[in-house]
């Protein structure tokens, strides 16, 4: 686990906005998100479909389509990613940030040997490296991931599903990136295979010290794997904090409802799931004020007109909710949360 004292920021995101231009009008998929990703942490980003979590990942990699308008700041290792030109971007992707995809069978080329996939990655990013020394590097990496080095001459179909998934991780790790993005990387996997992949992600973080951003709709998986959890709702960050803090005592009403509606396989846990009223909003016409207010059991008058901000409420826990913030319409003083 991570020491909480000396956390350095790897990524600093400030006032990030992403708007997609569509035929029916602009869709505000990311609305004013400011947050940090720490060095060497596993951050789990959760939310329901359409909440903007994949857009967030794509914005980090600058892989948004042309129809998306992005502004704000993304500082990665102190450099402004949004100001990169195409050449800088190519270098940035792969070497500084890389991605693990969901389905290894569709992501690997069936007529290319495992070694060739990996060589290609090196030769694109480091054209000066000789093939021989690249192969040595590849063999070492592959062995560290638990695949025999002879398997670099195999084709993808000759490997088992778990090995293919490890090759995918290898591709992501090859250039020693600082951040690995796993967007629903385990979603189509069976539970036992998924459990093994989670073990591997944890191992590579421990061994390589890389930060991992896991984007998923599976909240239990974040409890299992991550150091911190970030909860998104309708394009905004509702709550961010250490998994222990947030799972033990969620503060945002959305997080509270969400966590109570997650099925738990343990028999002694509560027997019914919380039934959250309504469904996530359409982001073409997002609700005014706090976007959660139509479904919120604790909505205040101000919630319908003004959006709150994501502010620290206690150590390692930031919440985007008027319940914990002062505002002019407040009749009672802000709820103080015992830390």
């Amino acid at each position, binding site marked *: 686990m991570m020491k909480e004292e000396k956390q350095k920021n790897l990524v600093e995101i400030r006032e990030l906005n992403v708007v997609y231009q569509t035929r029916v009008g602009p869709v505000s998929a990311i609305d004013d998100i400011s947050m940090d990703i720490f060095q060497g942490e596993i951050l789990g980003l959760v939310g329901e*479909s359409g909440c903007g979590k994949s857009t967030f990942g794509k914005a980090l990699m600058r892989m948004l389509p042309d129809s998306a308008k992005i502004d704000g700041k993304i500082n990665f290792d102190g450099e402004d990613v949004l100001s990169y030109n195409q050449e800088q971007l190519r270098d940035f992707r792969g070497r500084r940030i890389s991605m693990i995809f969901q389905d290894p069978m569709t992501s690997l080329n069936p007529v290319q040997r495992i070694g060739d996939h990996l060589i290609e990655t090196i030769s694109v990013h480091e054209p000066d490296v000789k093939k021989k020394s690249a192969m040595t590097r590849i063999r070492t990496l592959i062995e560290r991931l638990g695949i025999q080095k002879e398997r670099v001459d195999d084709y993808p179909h000759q490997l*088992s599903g778990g090995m293919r998934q490890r090759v995918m991780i290898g591709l992501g790790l090859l250039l020693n990136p600082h951040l690995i993005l796993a967007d629903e990387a385990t979603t189509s996997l069976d539970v036992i295979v998924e459990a093994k992949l989670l073990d591997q992600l944890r191992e590579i973080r421990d061994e390589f010290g890389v930060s991992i951003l896991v984007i998923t*709709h599976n909240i239990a998986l974040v*409890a*299992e794997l991550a150091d911190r959890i970030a909860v998104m709702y309708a394009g905004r960050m509702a709550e961010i904090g250490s998994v222990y803090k947030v799972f033990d005592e969620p503060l945002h009403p959305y997080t509270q409802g969400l966590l109570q509606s997650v*099925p738990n*396989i343990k028999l002694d846990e509560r027997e019914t799931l919380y039934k*959250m009223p309504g469904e*996530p909003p359409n982001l073409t016409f997002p609700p005014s004020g706090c976007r959660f207010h139509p479904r919120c059991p604790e909505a205040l008058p101000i919630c319908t007109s003004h959006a709150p901000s994501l502010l620290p409420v206690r150590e390692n826990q930031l919440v985007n909710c008027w319940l914990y913030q002062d505002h002019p319409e407040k009749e009672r003083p802000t709820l103080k949360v015992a830390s």
Partner: protein
Amino acid sequence: MNNHENGTSPKNGNLVEVKDLRKWFPVQSGFLERIMAGRVDYVRAVDDVSFTIRRGEVLGLAGESGSGKTTIGKLVIRLENPTRGTVLFDGIDLSTLNSDEMRKMRRRMQVIFQDPMASLNPRMSIGEAIQHPLQIHFPDQSKSHREMIYQILEKVGLGPPQFFYEKFPHQISGGQRQRVVIARALVTQPDLVLADEPIAMADVSVRALLLDLMIQLKNEFNLTYLFITHDLATAKYICDRIGILYLGRMAEIGKLREVYSLPLHPYTQALLAAVPVPNPHERRTQLMPSGEIPDAINPPSGCRFHPRCPIAQDVCSVDIPELRELRSGHLVACHFAEQFL
């Protein structure tokens, strides 16, 4: 049409009895290959599976991909014909029915699939979609169809029904679409509903509502569910009994609470341990079984789990373990399960 309802037939209270069910799919191969090999290979999707579903219960079938759970569901309502074995529905052997009789029988067995968008015709309004089964099964009551549709729409929480009747699938939300699929399945007043991953596509906050709806409708209409899922955590909230499948065979079956509290098959134990728990204080410490699910064309001999099993002995690679009742109503197919009692 209703003479089988209200428990008049089978004395034992079983709505479905599945005996030695087998489905082998021939592997597509070239003519020359077949001649050279001198045989046809089969994918052994379902291999000698037996179980019963009691009237009014929810039986879950769980397993990883390739375990045969979806094929079993299709065999039970005869969307596929078995290679061997029988399915008795309300005491009637489905394989003895001709297509006309089978079509009549289908009124009593309906199905809900995973993806509501794929289950609904985008060019049919909600009303038309639900009317379709009524036209097939109740053609002589066409005057009251609209009334029946309004009623079922209200039952599944899509009110006012006049409003939803006219809508098209793309005009409503994902959760509402799955409610339409449920309404369409229930409008023929079935006895058995096959629900194949019915809520896997829905968002967490919507799932609980759909599960609740399914339980409520089951109680109101005396339904029996065959609930097929890969999600063992969700199964806990709806299933009375659960069967765990591995590579086409039943590994373990029993009351869900008993199977979850004392799993007797090493595979069930691994499967339950692998499911992440939404509590960071309870992270998994168990090791996962080595290897992966083998090929269903050449499954391992003896117990199919033996190459990955932590307690396997020589006999496991030779003898196929029978499902044995080690606790009341709790059956397990493992030679050495006694040690877990």
